């Protein structure tokens, strides 16, 4: 186990996986309990438009992705707050348009033959130091914001209308949440790529929700699960020479199915309560 993480790039990869796990466990929990997994997916895919645009304009792809994802998250928040029923359609459209824009922008970029795969499926083994610093900053930001606004987020997630009646500014909270989703998603693109983002945002909270009695506990358990998935996934990928991002997802998926099977077995034995 230790030897796998002796080289510097593996240590960087592990650090990136753990740092991403913190923000994604917390934000993923909010995404799952607010039932906006589809919106998170929309932001992740639309971010590809930002990557294409950044390459076309010659600015760093990650900066382009962050700017674009934040813009898309603001649009999606506005649409969702205005009309919940129609929101999924708009999210679906932005999802596709973002990706298409990204591809066309890369087509138009002269002489540039970008490695699409690294954005679609991640490149955790090639994470530069600067990205690790950025991830740490995002973690601190997410911890502070969710820590300060915890009671408001809890109230909004549990019963939005009651929270509103209590004077909680739901609109503002929603924009903040979507902004944090955008940043977390961009981090995950580095690790597992945008195609697999949804899995890492939603699987840990899904498992955690089964045995957690509070939102706080669910966040902590999700972060822990993310640590387990990242560490185990990297080790397997190193040992068996597999793509790291996909291996992490497969580990998560194995836990996911095991938790579902466990739950069914417990129900069957009548021990569910």
């Amino acid at each position, binding site marked *: 186990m230790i030897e796998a993480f002796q080289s510097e790039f593996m240590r960087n990869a592990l650090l990136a996986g753990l740092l991403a796990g913190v923000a994604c466990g917390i934000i993923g929990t909010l995404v799952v*309990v607010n039932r906006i997994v589809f919106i998170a997916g929309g932001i992740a895919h639309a971010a590809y438009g930002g990557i294409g645009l950044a390459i076309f304009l010659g600015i760093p792809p990650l900066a382009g992705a962050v700017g674009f994802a934040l813009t898309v998250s603001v649009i999606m928040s506005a649409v969702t707050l205005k009309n919940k029923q129609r929101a999924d359609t708009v999210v679906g459209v932005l999802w596709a348009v973002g990706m298409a824009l990204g591809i066309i922008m890369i087509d138009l970029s002269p002489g540039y033959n970008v490695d699409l795969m690294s954005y679609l499926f991640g490149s955790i083994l090639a994470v530069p130091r600067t990205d690790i610093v950025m991830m740490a900053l995002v973690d601190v930001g997410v911890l502070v914001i969710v820590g300060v606004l915890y*009671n408001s987020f*809890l109230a909004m997630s549990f*019963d939005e209308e009651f929270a509103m*009646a209590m*004077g*909680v500014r739901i609109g503002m909270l929603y924009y903040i949440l979507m902004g944090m989703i955008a940043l977390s998603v961009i981090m995950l693109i580095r690790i597992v790529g945008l195609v697999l983002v949804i899995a890492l945002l939603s699987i840990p909270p899904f498992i955690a*929700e089964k045995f957690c009695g509070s939102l706080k506990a*669910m966040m902590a358990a999700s972060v822990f699960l993310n640590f387990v998935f990242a560490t185990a996934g990297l080790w397997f990928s190193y040992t068996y020479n597999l793509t790291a991002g996909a291996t992490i997802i497969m580990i998560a998926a194995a836990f996911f199915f095991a938790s579902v099977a466990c739950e069914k077995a417990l129900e069957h034995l009548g021990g569910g309560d």
Partner: protein
Amino acid sequence: MPLSAIEIDNVSFFYNSHPVLTNVNLRVEEKDFMAIMGPNGSGKTTLLKIILGVLNPARGSVRIFGKAPIEAAGLLGYVPQDTWLNKGFPISVQDVALMGRLGRTGRGRRYTSGDRDLARKVLEKVGMWDYRDRPIGKLSGGQRQRVLIARALTVEPKILLLDEPTASVDQQFQTDLYGLLKELNATITVVIVSHDVSVLSDYINSVACLNRTLYHHESGELTEEMLTAAYQCPVDLIAHGRVPHRVLRRHDHRDP
């Protein structure tokens, strides 16, 4: 003249350009105990949400003790219909009850020990303190309803709004609840959306019949005209107490 608890002036509300409420006028005086009744889809829940400030009316105005609903957080306690509830949500009974304090916590939204004491007192009152650490998803319908009532009471509201609070509870709890509401009514205003006006008539002071627009009656008495207007057909009415005992004839009902 003292301010009315709730003052609704000419309120209209549309849902996808379909009118849900049209020119609703209603004044609820302080310490009134009012029932709002009406057929399904008549806009009862919508009206409550407009009073709460959760929905904004397309036209007209709402005043809660003279304030706009958005500034009235902390004056209004709300018990929603049970059906919407996110039942798998990881939250304990105690944390749900504490949520009623959010309107009083100020900017920081932190709960004080005073808030916790109050939540305890209220949970004891509705008989749910022993279940304080239980996740909300592991309660029966009636228990959950008690917790939602506790949450509304921790607001220490001046007005309590309840949306069909007895839809999923047994007879005993229903009687207990109405008794509790009557007791609370000594100091606060109560507005309840309900179908069982026949049972409620022992407790209420006034009735409003809603079907897109409002037919309001100052006393607790229901008249045949009000019901007919609201339901657009005669309704069976079996009443006790102050409302005259009356059964209307059966007829072929057709939904409008």
